């Protein structure tokens, strides 16, 4: 019995071993089968999207771990920019979440958007920041007439309220009637004297006779004025208009409210020699102005080719008690030259302004001036004034993208006391550049940096919608 058992035991062990081996073998085969495709492709399950690459062993990565170095260096700038953009992002989100743009137009605009209200702002060297609102109606009298009411205020800029309007072209007559009214209080308007002299404060303390044209000192005075009158425009030909205007002006002067480091005009200059300073000005100007404007846009630049030229002449007489009596004439010619593809433009401008009459009949504020953000840039506003003023500009405008354009300029000019003293020497030079933002309609705003040989640095940041190639004053 024991022999039978002992013989049966090895047989059973072998059998168990065989079963075990068979089981192991079957398991291995089955496991390999799950890793590979099943014999029947139709029962094959599609993998998930991120598991279809069939990779069993990935490629070992190389030494790409150094990427943390530039990441570390750029981490702070990245987070700073993110932080700076967060309020903008929130504003955009709010704009879209509550449809603020729709709300704005519903409150401030008629359905056809012909009437609107805009905020405006300006920063000008010497006059600081000014802010305001602008109301525009582009379909006055339902004749595409225009009404433009603009109010601005600033600590140093002062207050300004202006109303400009026109009727639109009256039928096929080619005639448009309108007018302008402007009230302005400038707490510290600028006066540097008369003539082309360099600034020199050494002799301050004496009453300088500005008519000697030997001294220039930076001074300020209070200037309050109200001016306005009717304007009739006659379209003589396409792109050729004639403006006829009669403008009344009442002006008052006095010590500046906030000298801001400059002298007061009446502390430096003999104001009795400045016609109108002590008595005020009360005069009316009648003039005509012929304008040719055939500027065309080829690219997305505002103007690529063409002319924008104006010639004007007029006469000013004083109301009773006012000595004003002089003629005025001048021109302002701009030529746009398309250098390349409509997106690189050279603008050349020549301006001349002259008054004819005895100095005793010409209020000092009516003398032609140059200097400021639009004429002879790089110099303070109204830096030079005299009977004859002229300046020229060469400005290169180039497209940065379809909204922004950069510009570089050179301005040169000077003033003279009389025609027989017209010498082509001692010209003033200003230079600078900036960036302007535009839409399909034209300028939205610009920032301009300017300087001159005389020194100083002038910044002008302007978000008023009008065409600012011309001096708006």
């Amino acid at each position, binding site marked *: 019995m024991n022999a039978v058992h002992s013989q049966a035991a090895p047989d059973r062990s072998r059998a168990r071993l065989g079963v075990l081996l068979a089981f192991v073998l079957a398991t291995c085969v089955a496991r*390999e*089968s799950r*890793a*590979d*495709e099943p014999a029947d*492709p139709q029962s094959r*399950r*599609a*993998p*998930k*999207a*991120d*598991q*279809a*690459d*069939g*990779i*069993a*062993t*990935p*490629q*070992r*990565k*190389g*030494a*790409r771990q150094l*990427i943390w170095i*530039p*990441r570390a260096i*750029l981490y702070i*700038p*990245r987070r700073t*920019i*993110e932080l700076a*953009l967060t309020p*903008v*992002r929130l504003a*955009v*989100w709010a*704009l*879209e979440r509550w*449809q603020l743009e*729709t*709300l704005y*137009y*519903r409150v401030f605009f008629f*359905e056809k958007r012909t009437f609107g209200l805009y905020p405006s702002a300006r920063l000008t060297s010497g006059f600081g920041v000014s802010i305001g609102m602008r109301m525009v109606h582009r379909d006055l009298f339902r004749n595409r007439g225009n009404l433009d009411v603009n109010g601005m205020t600033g600590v140093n800029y002062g207050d300004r309220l202006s109303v400009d309007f026109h009727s639109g072209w009256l039928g096929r007559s080619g005639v448009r009637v309108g007018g302008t009214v402007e009230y302005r209080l400038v707490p510290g308007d600028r006066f540097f004297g008369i003539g082309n002299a360099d600034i020199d404060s050494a002799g301050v303390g004496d009453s300088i006779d500005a008519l000697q044209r030997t001294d220039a000192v930076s001074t300020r005075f209070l200037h309050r004025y109200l001016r306005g009158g009717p304007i009739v425009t006659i379209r003589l030909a396409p792109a050729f208009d004639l403006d006829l205007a009669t403008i009344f002006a009442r002006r008052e002067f006095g010590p500046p409210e906030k000298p801001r480091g400059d002298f007061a005009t009446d502390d430096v200059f003999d104001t009795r020699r400045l016609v109108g300073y002590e008595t005020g000005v009360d005069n009316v100007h009648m003039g005509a102005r012929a304008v040719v404007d055939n500027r065309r846009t080829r*690219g997305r630049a505002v103007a690529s080719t063409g002319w924008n030229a104006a010639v004007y002449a007029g006469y000013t007489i004083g109301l009773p008690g006012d000595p004003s009596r002089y003629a005025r004439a001048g021109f302002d010619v701009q030529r746009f030259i398309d250098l390349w*593809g409509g*997106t*690189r433009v050279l603008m050349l401008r020549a301006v001349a302004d002259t008054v004819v009459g005895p100095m005793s009949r010409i209020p000092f504020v009516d003398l032609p001036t140059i200097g400021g953000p639009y004429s002879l840039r790089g110099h303070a506003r109204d830096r030079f004034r005299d009977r004859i003023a002229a300046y020229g500009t060469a400005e*290169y405008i*180039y*497209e*940065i*993208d*379809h909204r*922004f354009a*950069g510009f570089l300029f050179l301005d040169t000019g000077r003033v003279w006391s009389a025609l027989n003293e017209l010498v082509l020497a001692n010209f003033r030079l200003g230079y600078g550049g900036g960036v302007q933002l535009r839409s*399909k309609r034209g300028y939205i705003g610009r920032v301009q940096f300017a300087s001159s040989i005389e020194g100083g640095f002038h910044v002008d940041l302007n978000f008023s919608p009008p065409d600012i190639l011309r001096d708006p004053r």
Partner: protein
Amino acid sequence: MSISTSHPRTSSVTRGEFARRVVVGLACVGGCSHTPGTLRFHNEDPHWVVDDRSPIAEPIERGAWNKLYFFEYDVSRPIDWTLAVPERRPARNVNALGEVPDSSWFTNRIGVRDLTVDEMLRGPNRTDGPVAPMRVTKAQADGGGFFIEDKGGATWILKFDPEHDPELGSAADVVAQRLLWAVGYHVPEDSVVYFARDELVLDPGATVPVKGGKVPFGEAELDAMLAARVPEHGRYRALASKFLVGEPKGPYTTEGLRKDDPNDRVPHEYRRDLRGQYVFFGWLAHTDLHAGNRLDMWIEHGDGRGHLEHNLIDFDRALGAMAVVIDSPWDAYRHRVDYKYMLASTLTLGLWKRPWEGLERPGLRGIGRFDSRHFEPDGYAPRDYFMPFLYKDRLDCFWAAKILMRLRPEHIRAAVAAAKLSDPRSAEYLSRVLIERQREIGRHWLAKVDPLDRFEVRGPAGDEMLCATDLLVHHRLDRGFAGATYVAVAFAGDGRRLPWRRTVRADANGAFCVDALPRGSGGDGYVIVSVATRRGKKQLPPVFVHMARKRGTGALRVIGLDRRL
């Protein structure tokens, strides 16, 4: 690699062999391009379908948030992405051959099979357009069209061409729609249709959106909209786009995943089908990629569960139409806010020739600012930054170019014919330009990586040969080269170099084979063949072809491709 530390004379590896292995190993640490490295594939056939249509709970509808989208992807995100120095990683939704499997995002068509001209002419459309009478239910705010329900109850949007540019938008849309369908994307059924005024019936409740609400849209308004269009023989031309099947759930994002879609497992910036759109959209000058033109549709299976299908819509600003409609000659060349261009213009004071300068309309009816002379395959830019394009690599563009090159001229002409351009010169011009641009793309992207493809094993067991096609030669794009040679070496599955090497030339169609493949290692005969193309003096990084024997049949076949950059 093991090295005995006993007496050198008794080490199992000679000094020379050791030195060789050290050199190779060091080279491979940095991603050596001449050895297969550690990458191995499962011994299975590559997958051509993925499972991303599993039933899920219904996701919420996402808003388009256009203004926020523009801010993020025009202003903020490009800056942030640059400063983040992201690591460029290869696409993750590809199979072992680097191809994109069929999914709810993409369906392989021309890439894997031929399409007939009739298929191209019809595209995805099951009908020829809406069937009259068409009931107008809503008008578009901009007066550009209206929504209708046709006789069969299907909802369509009818869109008119720009008032002074007949056929421009409708032609562009249909051509782009046909071509994008052919390459594999999911698009709506778009057709050019002509209809008469009396085929329109106004729904009494029809409205038109205005600022702050909507107002009734009546007969007078409908007539005014039609009056701005010039009918041809009493019939108005429009683009008819059928509403996609399912329920709209908003746009898919350009980055990350859709959190309420468990099927969405690959971050979108790592999807090859999205990255590859750079090539297709550049070809078609399709730049309007804002959120509203990418649409997820909810396909219900039942019991409130279903899946999302991902679609492209609105192509009526492709083919240079956008550049005309919004007067932007730079369209398709730079982004709406393009820091690179702004910086270049600022620093150079504008004194550099932009790539779009000189591009003019050909003066043909229905054709926008679109030509081949000013086309740069790598110079395309959509209006808004599209994040997958920032992550793309040459392999993504190679994949797309391969598919694009399979479209033959007759396919392209059929797509153009579907646009029903009235002037045959316009159709001829458009077809010619598309073909020329296609070849520029092929010439550019197929040369950026080793252009070998269509790998397959042929021959009897034991005497197999590996065959491939040089796509540059196959598509006749290898101008200027004397003729390429292809050098193949083999490695076993464990990485050992095998004593086998072949140098061959291709035939006139770019096809070649290397014979007598060596036996690999392991029970499945895993073998890797590296094939490098030498064209003139230039040799591109090779393609590593991984092969193994199929379980059961023992047949050797390609199980994976490793393309190097």
